[in-house]
């Protein structure tokens, strides 16, 4: 593939190749070191006690019994907890959350830390925690979305507008020949990365070293520095491997701060690993939503209005609101668009970003509502979407930086066999008599970029080291970013030493928003480019080089040689150039972020189309997704093997959202009744078959220097709606909540 983006670099040597994971060997041999795998000498174990009630206050803790248990060294309660230098009730940055670190005796949600026990062994710490036997003064908990009045606010998610209007929605409603007005609900969901949150904290003087999984290493350093009153550069975070993140491992949380405090207090390293049950509370979740969608269309099926109102649950003490209604912006060419959000404050842990925050919940409902409209209009669901295909961004009129959605629809529909779908529901049965239904949805995810920096150093022997504090939580960053770095230096992958996953390196930014490969990759690309530029300058100025005087033409870097652009007969090996220049290393650096003017000029999104087949037992109502075809256009794919895995994973998260995941509160007592992996269902292997991913070719000259759009989150969007629509198509029954439960399909 010719590359016109940068005259120095030819793509294709490494990028675009389906190489296996660089960390694969470590991960299959058990030598990949996750945070809790560290056990430094003289270490103590910390266990926090979670509140058993959802609202009230702690009136008693048997600290004597706990402290007396053999092996227990310290018991921390609000009465004796040493001071923090930063207040956990502050929000020092827009990404901060308020949290509980034993600042008082109040209980704001079930699962909140109310005490900490430190001991010589994990067993002793657990037993000490049990012996504390808390007593409470209980107030009536409010955990149902109807338990409080919705209120309006300014910003949803992280600083997104709570209300967005384009055109005249009232006129859109008035002019509609057909309209629907439907309300859907989505359940609270918990990230539940397989690795629970864990930290090993160690102080040396006023220097803090943290082995912990972090999706945002620099931000973590700054955050912990704030709470402990030390400079950010005194905090070392080592996060070589994350056992999954999904949005939950980016920010400081109460349990971490308590463990670090215990380490400072005891002067010994402290390990804390949350239990699975403790993951349901203090470390974020996807907030419950209730969404009303009013759609209007003219007789031909052209949308006159998409009017999307979201109500989301948040905590009583913080304000992260799932920006679900924003999922209706930017996707369909409606005459008018309105997205509004309100929130409900409940006695729950604060929600936070969880894989496709807003987009997942919002897309689920939008895609089902469109299906309901298609039914009303007598249109094929795909036809309705094509009728409302947006050639430019609805509302703003901005051109898309690229948009191969039409190809996604076509290739996905072809692979799935969508054309033979009967319009009416309940028409198909398989050989075993199961009801069969087909549904589809549009996948859509923005392409944000954050800020990242990187260094690259080319050594005299034509090997290189590149550095950025990027993180791999399973998305394959170590591999894809190394591929980008190798290309930027014109070197084979095995000549590049890729350093990432810890602080003390150039800031690799945040692994989130599906923007990490684009951002950290952009910085690496720039750093490598900086090295090659310097190398070219040395060669062009060196009369002994075949490249002498060719500076104006520019160079192509490949396989450790520089070639004159347009004249492959003139080239020289890096080793020779460097040898003559005294053998010195060449160090370069680079950074990446999106220029504001670029963002002004184009709308930038990844797109896709997901087609689902479900089979349903007509008597038992058991549902099974039997086929799922997703066609995605996400710009340049750096590593097809890993990108496909990301998209598969996202689509299975879609199955999970549609059919499985739901934290269920006991609204009388306020706790979550299924706070473990037996009760909180995610799919097991047997729930997943018939998956098919198509990556549709797309080149995007505007989105960023590398043309990358990101694949981490888009797989969920589209999929949830496609499954909901397939269930309707199988049964004729429209279930307006997720997850769809087996009993929702009862006919009587």
């Amino acid at each position, binding site marked *: 593939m010719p590359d016109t983006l940068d005259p120095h670099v030819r793509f294709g040597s490494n990028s675009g190749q389906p190489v296996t994971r660089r960390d694969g060997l470590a991960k299959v041999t058990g030598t990949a070191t996750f945070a809790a795998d560290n056990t430094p000498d003289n270490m103590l174990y910390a266990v926090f006690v979670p509140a058993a009630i959802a609202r009230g206050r702690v009136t008693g803790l048997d600290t004597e019994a706990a402290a007396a248990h053999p092996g227990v060294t310290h018991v921390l309660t609000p009465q004796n907890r040493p001071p923090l230098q930063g207040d956990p009730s502050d929000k020092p940055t827009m990404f901060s959350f308020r949290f509980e670190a034993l600042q008082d005796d109040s209980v704001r949600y079930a699962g909140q830390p109310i005490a900490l026990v430190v001991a010589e062994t994990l067993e002793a710490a*657990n*037993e000490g925690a*049990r012996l504390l036997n808390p007593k409470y003064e209980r107030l009536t908990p409010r955990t149902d979305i109807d338990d409080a009045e919705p209120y309006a606010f300014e910003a949803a998610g992280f600083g997104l507008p709570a209300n967005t209007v384009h055109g005249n929605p009232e006129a859109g409603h008035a002019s509609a020949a057909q309209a629907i007005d439907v309300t859907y609900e989505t359940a609270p969901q918990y990230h539940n990365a397989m690795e629970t949150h864990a930290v090993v904290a160690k102080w040396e003087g006023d220097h803090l070293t943290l082995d912990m999984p972090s999706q945002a290493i620099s931000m973590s350093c700054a955050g912990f520095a704030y709470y402990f009153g030390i400079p950010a550069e005194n905090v070392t975070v080592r996060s070589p491997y994350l056992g999954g993140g999904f949005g939950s491992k980016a920010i400081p949380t109460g349990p971490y701060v308590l463990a670090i405090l215990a380490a400072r207090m005891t002067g010994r390293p402290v390990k804390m690993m949350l239990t699975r049950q403790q993951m349901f509370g203090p470390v974020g979740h996807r907030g419950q939503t209730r969404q009303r969608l009013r759609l209007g269309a003219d007789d031909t099926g052209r949308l006159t209005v998409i009017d999307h109102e979201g109500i989301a649950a948040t905590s009583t003490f913080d304000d992260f609101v799932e920006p679900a209604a924003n999922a209706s912006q930017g996707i369909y060419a409606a005459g008018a668009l309105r997205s509004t959000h309100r929130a409900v404050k409940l006695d729950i842990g604060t929600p936070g970003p969880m894989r496709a925050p807003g987009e997942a919940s919002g897309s689920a409902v939008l895609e089902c509502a469109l299906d309901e409209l298609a039914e009303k209009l007598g249109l094929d669901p795909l036809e309705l979407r094509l009728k409302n295909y947006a050639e430019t961004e609805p509302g703003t009129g901005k051109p898309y930086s690229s948009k191969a959605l039409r190809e996604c629809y076509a290739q996905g529909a072809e692979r799935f066999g969508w054309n033979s779908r009967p319009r009416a529901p309940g028409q198909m049965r398989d050989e075993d008599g199961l009801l069969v239904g087909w549904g589809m949805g549009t996948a859509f995810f923005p392409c944000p970029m954050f800020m990242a920096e990187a260094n690259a150093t080319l050594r005299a022997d034509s090997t290189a080291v590149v550095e950025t504090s990027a993180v791999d939580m399973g998305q394959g960053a170590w591999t894809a970013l190394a591929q980008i770095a190798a290309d930027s230096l014109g070197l084979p992958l095995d000549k590049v030493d890729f350093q990432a996953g810890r602080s003390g390196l150039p800031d690799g930014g945040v692994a989130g928003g599906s923007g990490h490969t684009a951002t950290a990759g952009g910085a690496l690309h720039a750093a490598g480019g900086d090295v090659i530029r310097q190398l070219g300058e040395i060669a062009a100025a060196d009369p002994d080089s075949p490249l002498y005087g060719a500076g104006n033409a520019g160079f192509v870097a490949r396989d450790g040689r520089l070639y004159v652009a347009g004249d492959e007969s003139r080239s020289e090996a890096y080793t020779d150039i460097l040898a003559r220049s005294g053998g010195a290393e060449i160090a370069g650096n680079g950074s990446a972020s999106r220029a504001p003017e670029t963002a002004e000029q184009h709308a930038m999104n990844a797109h896709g189309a997901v087609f689902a087949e479900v089979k349903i037992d007509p*008597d*038992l*109502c*058991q549902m*099974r997704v039997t086929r799922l075809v997703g066609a995605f256009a996400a710009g340049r794919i750096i590593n097809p093997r890993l990108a496909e895995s990301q998209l598969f994973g996202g689509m299975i998260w879609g199955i999970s959202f549609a059919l*499985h995941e739901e934290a*269920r509160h006991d609204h009388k007592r306020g706790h979550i*009744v*299924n706070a473990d992996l*037996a*009760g909180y*269902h995610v*799919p*097991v*292997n*047997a*729930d997943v078959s018939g998956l098919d991913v198509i990556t549709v070719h797309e080149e995007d000259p505007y989105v960023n220097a590398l043309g990358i759009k990101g694949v981490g989150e888009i797989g969920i969007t589209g999929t949830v709606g496609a499954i909901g629509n397939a269930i309707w198509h199988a049964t004729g029954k429209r279930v307006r909540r997720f997850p769809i*439960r*087996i*009993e929702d399909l*009862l006919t*009587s």
Partner: protein
Amino acid sequence: MTLHRPESLDEALSLLGGGAVVLAGGTDVYPGLRDGPPPSRMVDLTRVAGLRGISLRDGLWRIGAATTWTDVLRAELPACFAGLKGAAREVGSVQIQNTGTVAGNICNASPAADGVPALMALDAQVEVAGPEGPRRVALEQFIRGPRNVDLRPSEIVSAVLVPEATGQGAFRKLGARKYLVISIAMVAAVVEVSGNAISRARVSVGSCSPVAVRLRGLEEALTGATVAEVPGIVAGADLPGLTPIDDVRASAAYRREAVRTLIARTITDAMEVRDVT
């Protein structure tokens, strides 16, 4: 807490009392340990001689108390045990089946214990060892309620006994996930057929009442039924033993409706397998 690993039943019995907890596979005991105070001692039965394995003597199949679900799956057993084998395959995961025991599943007395309906349909009895010697009690009487069994602190379940029988067994389990799932409902049946009609049916249902139950009224109504007649009989049957509740896994209304389908299919499974062989 101390752990004892006796090598004889008498030695095991001598260690009981005073809050001792008995375990074999431990798959139910350990998770519970993390929620409560540690017991003064634990008595591990896996080393007790003769407690593991399945044998037939004097018309009784004897499933030793330390027999795992995997042992059941691999044992050569007559067709009436097909339901028990079906249950064995669905208890937790294979990892659980490799250590979890049949007797442990009974003693844990969860309303959702997968093994219990299959054993009830086999008219299983529980052999209890104690200071006054062994006694036998029907499984239906042994489990008195959720987490409540007819076992004194001085006693140990030494085996589960199943009378030799003809007929074909079957088992079906309904869960919200395809595997690794706590049952919404499960049905076990053992059916004897003569000609093309049922001569004797034994049917048990779990997860739809505090303790799994035998549906004796239905069993009688099924006598003489052909495969084609089974769904109608099940649909019209009075099933007073089933008192499902709403829980996190499914609603009572769903269970009430779905369980009849599940019963009819399980009985049909048992009849059709016989037709084939």
